[in-house]
């Protein structure tokens, strides 16, 4: 590893209400893979935006190869050799790979027209130099997420990046794609002398990939460690600021009869394309069925179809031998399905309403919370909410606080508390811990398992394989709206399941499920 390439001294950034970066000192050495970890809202992204010129620090200095610099906008950063791959890709889906890569610095013919042939050549050159395989002539919308990420990386390299900032690069990738990305990153660093900064919250990746790791918490840089001297436990504690106890999640119940059964379910997505192509599954009492799949393979549509929020084209949703297909969300709730939706702010909550108002949804016209179904009985509602706030450890000064003023973890606890408290025999839980801090994740996991142990039938959808493996009794894989496999947890490795998630392998026909 070489000398300091970038050095930040006392970088401070204030947003209304939060000190996003509080006097950050950080050095990035030439030729290293430097991981930056921290919980949501720790200030990682803000720091990287400052480095890339998207935000200006209120205070502090940035040194580049020993010289003080002012990165007033991204083109300054690009000229210095800093490239960034955002978490959400900035690609034009209807353009080809080559066009996307040269975008902004297109080769030209007669100074007006784009030289497409040249663009393809440039792309092929890049592919040869860096060993990142892409097909220059394909349209971006036709390539997988993993490839799109490569395109982003190539784009940055084409602009002359020596330092690559990768923001949560593995969030959208399958285990296989993640592995491939790591190979690429290692190659870039080892053979081509690039420097890589990777932002992540997955500690296994930090351990597997990085040379050094910097941990952030609440806007402060807690410390920088040599990865070989660190462990996941140490890093987790630095992130959270206290000891993290991972208690074992025991199963204390026996599975009973099947109470949710889905047969040949078909439904379309918002564009009118078939998103579910005849899904069959069943969930038993006291069982957590996990659904694994790369996002956008029909999971969201499945949940919406089951909960009455999306029209069902054909098929059955049997609950206690009653077909709920085509019923309203209300009827489905009354038939015994509660639902934690994937996006709390879009579907799960009203952020402009108080905690009380959010927690009374579904009870608002039920006795005793509404006398005769009409007159809101504030007292009983407040009592219930008070109990739930305590039971689910929602951190708030009062139940009259507007939900928008709470952290992601506390918002999620409100959704979970409300839905779990309906005491339905069936729970559909989608992305239960997305954007939630480690402490809350642990709590939510325990609550889910407790529900299962009480005999609830749980359908769990998560983009985090770790979560599925930790909680599920059985896992099914989906790919392009079809089930590709069903496994008892423990029968299959994460790596193997990745093959089913990408449709590279398939079980003939899902027999028992």
């Amino acid at each position, binding site marked *: 590893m070489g000398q300091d390439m970038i050095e930040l001294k006392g970088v401070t950034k204030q947003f209304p209400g939060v000190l996003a970066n509080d006097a950050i000192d950080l050095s990035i050495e030439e030729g290293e893979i430097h991981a930056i970890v921290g919980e949501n809202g720790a200030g990682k992204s803000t720091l990287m935006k400052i480095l890339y010129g998207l935000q200006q620090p209120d*205070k502090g200095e940035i040194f580049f190869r020993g010289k003080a610099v002012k990165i007033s906008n991204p083109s300054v950063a690009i000229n210095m050799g800093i490239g960034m791959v955002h978490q959400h890709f900035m690609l034009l889906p209807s353009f080809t790979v080559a066009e996307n890569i040269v975008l902004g610095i297109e080769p030209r013919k007669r100074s007006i027209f784009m030289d497409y042939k040249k663009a393809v050549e440039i792309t092929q050159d890049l592919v040869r130099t860096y060993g990142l395989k892409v097909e220059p002539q394909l349209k971006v919308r036709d390539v997988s997420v993993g490839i799109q990420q490569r395109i982003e990386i190539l784009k940055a390299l084409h602009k002359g990046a020596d330092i690559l900032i990768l923001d949560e690069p593995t969030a959208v990738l399958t285990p296989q794609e993640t592995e491939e990305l790591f190979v690429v990153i290692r190659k870039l660093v080892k053979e081509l002398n690039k420097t890589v900064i990777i932002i992540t919250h997955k500690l296994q990746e930090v351990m597997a990939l990085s040379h050094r790791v910097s941990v952030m918490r609440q806007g402060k840089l807690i410390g920088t460690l040599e990865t070989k001297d660190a462990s996941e436990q140490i890093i987790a504690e630095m992130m959270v600021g206290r000891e993290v106890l991972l208690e074992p999640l025991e199963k204390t119940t026996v599975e009973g009869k099947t109470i949710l059964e889905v047969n040949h379910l078909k439904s379309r997505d918002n564009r009118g394309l078939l998103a579910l192509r005849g899904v069959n599954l069943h969930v038993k009492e006291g069982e957590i069925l996990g659904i694994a799949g790369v996002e956008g393979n029909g999971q969201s549509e499945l949940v919406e179809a089951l909960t009455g929020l999306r029209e069902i084209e054909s098929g059955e949703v049997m609950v206690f031998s009653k077909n709920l297909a085509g019923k309203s969300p209300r009827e489905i709730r009354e038939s015994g399905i509660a639902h934690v*939706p994937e996006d709390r702010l879009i579907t*799960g909550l009203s952020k402009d*309403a108080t905690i009380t108002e959010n927690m009374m*949804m579904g009870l608002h016209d039920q006795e005793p919370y509404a006398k005769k179904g009409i007159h809101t009985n504030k007292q009983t509602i407040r009592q219930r909410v008070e109990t739930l706030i305590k039971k689910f450890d929602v951190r708030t000064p009062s139940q009259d606080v507007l939900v928008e003023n709470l952290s992601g973890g506390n918002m999620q606890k409100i959704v979970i508390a409300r839905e779990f408290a309906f005491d339905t025999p069936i729970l559909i839980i989608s992305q239960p811990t997305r954007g939630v801090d480690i402490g809350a994740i642990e709590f939510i996991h325990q609550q889910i398992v407790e529900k299962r142990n009480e005999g609830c039938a749980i359908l769990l959808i998560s983009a985090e394989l770790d979560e599925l493996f930790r909680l599920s009794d059985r896992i099914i894989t989906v790919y392009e709206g079809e089930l590709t496999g069903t496994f008892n947890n423990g029968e299959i490795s994460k790596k193997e399941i990745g093959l089913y998630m990408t449709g590279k392998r398939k079980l003939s026909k899902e027999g028992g499920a």
Partner: protein
Amino acid sequence: MKKVFNKKDMEYLISLFLSIVVALIIGGFIMMANGSSPFEGYRALIRGAFGSQYSLANTFGRTVPLILTGLAAAISFRSGIYNIGGEGQLYLGAFAAAYVGITFTSLPGPVGILLAIIAGAVVGGMYAFIPALLKVRYKIDEVITTIMLNTVAILLTDYLVNYPFAASQGKMGGTDMVEGSYRLTRLVPLSTFNTSIFMMSFIALTIYYIMQKTSAGYKFKMVGQNSSFANYGGIDAKKQMIIAMIISGGLCGIAGVFEVLGTHYRFLQNISPEYAFDGLLIALIVKSNPIGVVFMAIFFAALKTGSITMENTTSIPSELVLVIQSIIILFIAGEAGFKGMFKNFLMKRKLQQKVGEE
């Protein structure tokens, strides 16, 4: 149970108060630019609004249509559907009342009044139902349709009162007078202040109760804040929007009924000096809070009645109050922006102090 104002409510009340103060100060400068003393101007304004029994009667008489149309706007805004068609609904409601009053003349007084109110509410409500249905069925923007339906209603009633229902004596753009026993009793001599204030109060209390204390009010609010959340929670958002719109239209229709039975005793073309639009502004300013509507309606009514005295006793034109109203709206609309700027400023100051201490 104690009433807790959350931080946001408090911030809002402060910024509303500041907006009104600043608007009045700017109004004062305009008076000075006009060559008049702002103190004299405002004194005349206050005297005109509250100075005598007669002026008080005028002010509170004017609150009747303003509170009704204000609540109408509030209930629709809160449900996430924007009824800008209150003026048309008011005209049709007023016409319906006049029709009852000149057609069914042999009913006992209270029955006739009740029938007129019901007729006005139903006609207004049904007229609001059209754009509501277009909105939830075909996603046609209700703002556009309701605005256009205003013109339709106003021109339709223009036609009706000039041709089929024209007054039997003289061409005056109005219907005949309604049956004597249907006319609401005047409470203060010379003024038009009448018993509709009691009926309005009853209606307003009912609406307040529905909006703040019932599951129906909760549904409206949740649909307006986040209709996906409402649907997910088992509330039929479309149905709630339609109901809110019908109630809103009904309230505007009743506002029209009271103008006929209490003020003019007949339907007149141009019966409303844009009461429904004032109602919209009122609801906007108070962010659809029903209690706020009452206070803001009184404020608006006072400005309006006071401005007439002001114009008569000083050389300040009554249009000044429009300027004041508009400035308040401007500040309230810009509230978020101003608040953000202000907060940022404070934050920077704090940060600089902190830096300085080091």
